[in-house]
């Protein structure tokens, strides 16, 4: 658990969050991941500006990989949109779990719009880890600083990958794309302190590929609902038993 911190102002909290982004394990991970995505975007003929805008607007590495490779290989637009939206379902429960940590009773809806848009795996994992130690008044500012730091990292390294692409050997490009699943796995496992989190992780790892292999529609949604509910039920049963 990180030590509780106090900030004199919202601005200081914002910069505190920004600093956490740059010292987070996600800094090198996002850097590497977006070098890979930048190279992918270059290879499929997108412009550097388009890539940067996609990092800011979409702000989800798996969705961007899907978007770029689907559009680049000439998939139908509706097919690409469905693939993107299926990969993004995870953002829904993440926002639901994050916002109560950020909000006070009198927080205005518009102050939650930015953190909502910023919600992505890296930001979510780091927010759940760091926010409980922050004073509630400054959590939104801290979270925005953290997110701007992570998004800035992604956008900058996207450019690096874009302009490196021509010289990037395929094995190295594959290695960079492997950063996303690896870092998601380790950081989720690190944050999984409670039984419910560990079970949800385990069930998801098994259910996801099984449902995909059997060609079940909306496989990720079912993975979440079935795996998450099972994990929740086991935790509840244990709580009532003890």
């Amino acid at each position: 658990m990180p030590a509780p911190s106090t900030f004199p102002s919202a601005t200081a909290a914002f910069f505190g969050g920004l600093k956490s982004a740059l010292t987070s394990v996600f800094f090198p991970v996002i850097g590497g991941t977006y070098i890979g995505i930048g190279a992918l975007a270059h290879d499929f003929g997108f412009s550097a500006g388009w890539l940067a805008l996609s990092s800011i607007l979409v702000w989800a590495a798996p969705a961007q990989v899907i978007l770029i490779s689907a559009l680049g290989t000439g998939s139908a637009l509706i097919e690409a949109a469905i693939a993107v939206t299926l990969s993004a379902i995870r953002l829904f429960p993440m926002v639901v779990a994050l916002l109560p940590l950020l909000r006070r009773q009198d927080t205005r809806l518009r102050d939650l719009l930015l953190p909502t848009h910023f919600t992505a795996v890296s930001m979510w994992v780091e927010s759940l880890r760091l926010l409980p130690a922050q004073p509630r008044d400054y959590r939104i500012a801290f979270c925005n600083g953290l997110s701007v730091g992570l998004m800035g990292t992604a956008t900058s390294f996207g450019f690096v990958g874009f302009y490196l692409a021509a010289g990037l050997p395929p094995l190295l490009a594959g290695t960079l794309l492997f950063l996303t699943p690896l870092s998601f796995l380790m950081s989720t496992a690190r944050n999984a302190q409670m039984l419910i989190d560990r079970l949800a992780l385990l069930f998801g790892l098994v259910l996801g590929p099984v449902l995909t292999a059997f060609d079940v529609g909306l496989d990720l949604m079912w993975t979440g609902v079935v795996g998450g509910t099972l994990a929740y039920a086991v935790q509840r049963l244990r709580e009532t038993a003890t």
Partner: protein
Amino acid sequence: MNAVELSPYLVLILVGFLPNEIWRVLGLLLARGLDEDSEIVAWSRAVATAILAGVIAKLILFPSGALANIPLTVRVAAAVCGFIAFICIKRSVFAGVLGGEAALLIGGLLFAR
């Protein structure tokens, strides 16, 4: 209709931004008024974790782009190596990522197609 006929930026909004963002906005609408200790928030967190785990497994088992050129067994073995490194080295995310990447690179050099 395909990607070439529309402006790439319009495609980004329609096919990338909107289908992705809708889930965040739905979360915002549902999360209003929910307490962080409420059961639905605990359940949401479990569902989010399970979906994320599903995404992780799919990215490793059914990858796109250059990662698909590295054989399946190498990808799975590398992920396992990374997880072992993570467990053994004080649950360090950095150690896990580094261990997994090193294993993938070595496996890729030995067995790449």
